[in-house]
């Protein structure tokens, strides 16, 4: 009822074409790249900050929940509403407003596609460093909301290290600009909190990104191993030798087989695992670092190390990495991509355990992941049409989390909590710490209308902890 009223109120403001009420149109927004699907009650496609603010204010008036949405490539249900809500799709706010080539910054709309930004800035010798494997479909707004990572975040850091400022529409409709081009602005670092907040603190309507100079030289190595453990040892060995390469990605045999069947590029399908290792920078550094990485790999038992001879060969190697998820379809009709982080030194034992879990539940599993960060991405392939398969997948996922936490790891490295991992959060934070998270959220969104039921489990806010707020402290 209130969604209908909201639609009526928004039509004159946004135009009929930007207010989607027809079930077929809405259905397109019912899912992200995860497994959960919910039909959104209403979808709007604003084109400006003012329009977003108008939508948010109207939703506040009518008590309607708000769910921001970017490219819909999230894997944890982040952009999929949990209750009747208006989905605010930011894809039309895809303007690159201004680029400062000297200061190496740009103000961009949240709907700008990650890869497009780097393409546009390429002639200036600059790029946006975070490069999630989904970079041809995910948006900068989504990257900000999830604090996305990617292969090159090993040396460069996740999205948050590349976001200088955000314009945010708060849940009451107020527009604020947090952060800026100058460093260390006084006051709380609200920019840092908004990054990674998964659409629960407001709608990001503009982003000030830091651009990174394209390296003068780059070298990409493909290291082949007969045992997964040797690859994992090489990861620790390289970093122990004092080098943080740009990227250090592991692909196991299953991945290689699937990729080769998909791409036909001559991948070593008989290897147990390969490492894709890239160093970049000054030509002198690149040569020395690549030589050292190769030496470590050989010492750890690599049976072969190929070096990409030119940019074309390099692109082929990266294609194998970045197309991996697309190729999963070859393995099974449905897939579930997990994301956990373990201390790098525990990679070999955790990987053994991952294979055992898959075997126990009779699931296909491939491992292709950011090994340098210890950030695992086991991908399970299956057919949802099969009886009981969803339960098996969920059970396997839970076991994987149990293994992760038993070695002191984290629930997620880059995909976020969403609804998928929400109920695991009490396993890593005690009640007081969860309550603190809920307090922060409450300060932004006292009514809990932004992406409700996401990120924090029910009952996180326990008023019993600490002293009650004094009169008037709610400001």
């Amino acid at each position: 009822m209130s969604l209908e009223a909201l639609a009526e109120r928004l039509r004159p403001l946004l135009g009929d074409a930007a207010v989607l009420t027809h079930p077929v149109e809405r259905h397109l927004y019912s899912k992200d790249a995860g497994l959960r699907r919910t039909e959104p009650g209403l979808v709007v496609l604003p084109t400006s900050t003012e329009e977003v603010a108008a939508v948010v204010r109207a939703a506040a008036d009518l008590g309607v929940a708000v769910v921001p949405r970017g490219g819909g490539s999230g894997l944890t249900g982040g952009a999929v509403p949990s209750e009747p809500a208006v989905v605010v799709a930011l894809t039309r706010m895809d303007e690159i407003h201004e680029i400062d080539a000297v200061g190496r910054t740009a103000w961009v709309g949240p709907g700008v596609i990650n890869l497009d930004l780097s393409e546009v800035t390429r002639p200036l010798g600059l790029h946006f460093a975070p490069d999630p494997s989904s970079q041809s479909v995910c948006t900068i707004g989504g990257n900000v909301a999830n604090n996305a990572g990617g292969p090159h975040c090993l040396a460069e850091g996740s999205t948050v290290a590349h976001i200088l400022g955000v314009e945010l529409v708060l849940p009451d409709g107020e527009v604020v600009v947090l952060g800026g081009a100058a460093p260390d602005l006084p006051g709380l670092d609200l920019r840092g909190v908004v990054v990674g907040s998964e659409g629960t603190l407001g709608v990001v309507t503009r982003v000030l990104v830091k651009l990174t100079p394209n390296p003068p030289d780059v070298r990409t190595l493909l290291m082949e191993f007969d045992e997964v453990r040797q690859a994992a040892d090489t990861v620790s060995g390289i970093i122990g030798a004092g080098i943080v390469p740009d990227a250090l990605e592991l692909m196991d045999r299953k991945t290689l087989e699937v990729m080769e069947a998909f791409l036909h590029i001559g991948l070593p399908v008989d290897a147990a695992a390969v490492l894709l290792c890239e160093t970049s920078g000054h030509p002198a550094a690149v040569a020395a670092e690549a030589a050292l990485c190769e030496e470590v790999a050989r010492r750890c038992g690599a049976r072969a190390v190929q070096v990409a001879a030119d940019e074309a060969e390099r692109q082929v190697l990266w294609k194998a990495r970045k197309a991996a998820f697309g190729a999963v379809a070859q393995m099974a009709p449905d897939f579930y991509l997990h994301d956990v982080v373990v201390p790098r030194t525990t990679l070999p034992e955790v990987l053994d355990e991952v294979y055992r879990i898959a075997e126990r539940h009779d699931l296909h599993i491939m491992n292709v992941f950011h090994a340098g960060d210890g950030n695992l991405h086991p991908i399970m392939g299956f057919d949802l049409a099969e009886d009981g398969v969803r339960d098996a997948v969920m059970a396997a996922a839970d076991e994987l989390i149990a293994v992760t936490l038993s070695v002191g790891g984290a629930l997620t490295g880059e995909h976020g909590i969403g609804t998928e991992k929400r109920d695991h959060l009490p396993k890593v934070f005690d009640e007081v710490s969860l309550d603190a998270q809920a307090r922060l959220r409450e300060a932004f969104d006292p009514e809990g209308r932004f992406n409700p039921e996401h990120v924090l489990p029910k009952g996180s806010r326990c008023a019993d902890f600490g002293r009650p707020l004094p009169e008037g402290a709610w400001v």
Partner: protein
Amino acid sequence: MTFPELLSSLSSHAIHGAPPCDLTVRPKSPEVVADVLAACSTDGLRVLIWGAGTHQGIGHRVDPDVVLSTERLDRIVDHRVDDLTLTVQAGVTVGSIASTLRPHGQMAVLPEEEKAATVGGVLAVGASGYGRLRMGPVRDHLLEVLVATGDGRLVRAGAKVVKHVQGYDLMRLSVGSLGSLGVVVEATLKLWPTPRASATVEVAMPPDAGRAFRPQAVLQTRDRTLVMLTGTAEEVEAQADALGGESERGLLWPDQPRPRDGEGLWSVRVPPTLVPEVVDRVPGEFVAQHGVGIVEAPMDGPTAAAMREWLEPLGGVVVLLGGHDALYADPGPWGSDPAALDLQRRIVARFDPDRVVNPGRPAGGI
């Protein structure tokens, strides 16, 4: 070290006079910190947090009832050498972290030129070192925190792995918070391998410094411009040769400029492209961090006020790091109120509702 001893060892721009209160508590555990803060909340006492005293000049003056010293929170809790993480209590100093890590060929991204500063203090004020151009600010290397909130709860956030997005980023929120959420009592830092080689090259500025690829720092003082290079020996040598000029091994950080009578030490923070213009306008000594956007310079009140008037509309700020009391009244330590001040107040009200920790000290007088 006793508290009076600590005081006498303070650096010149730390604070003027003794800490303004007689009652000092030195808790030995995070739990006791929380207990102290809970008690102070109940009794409505104002608490000043004291690390090594090296950054006490930042922010509005606090007139405390109690000083809480982190000096005995001095434990290195966990160094996971192969995982490149280090967990320390708040009172551990930058210098002792460096000496713990050195034998392992590792480093933490902290202001290495400020050896006496404590980790808690560095995080509370958000002090990044000169190596920031290459390494990024200190907040980008904080993986986990344990915070004793103003109302005495012990809150943990983050995780002890080098990358994660597990819940809201209370780590970054606490960096630069000046205690408005509470006291950071323990922190896990992301470590990095120490670069294999480093050099300091003196160049003519501009435009020579711009030719270096990813230098550690480009620092300009009144009489020279230094490019700090780090990396493999091959890279450092090649880059130093390409730059020309005098080159020395190691990173030879310049001294912080010293204020003269009547002057304070100010941190001018601007979009990095404005640094050359700021340098043209500062009256005396300075250290300018090119590419970062920070110029530290001694200035008297009227000069700082004029600088502020010019820069605030351009997105800059002029922050007082230390000086005599009059400067805190006029032109004041922060300048205009920060963005989203109401929202900041709402957050602070949920962590320190009675405002017991460093009350009034942060920007906007929170």
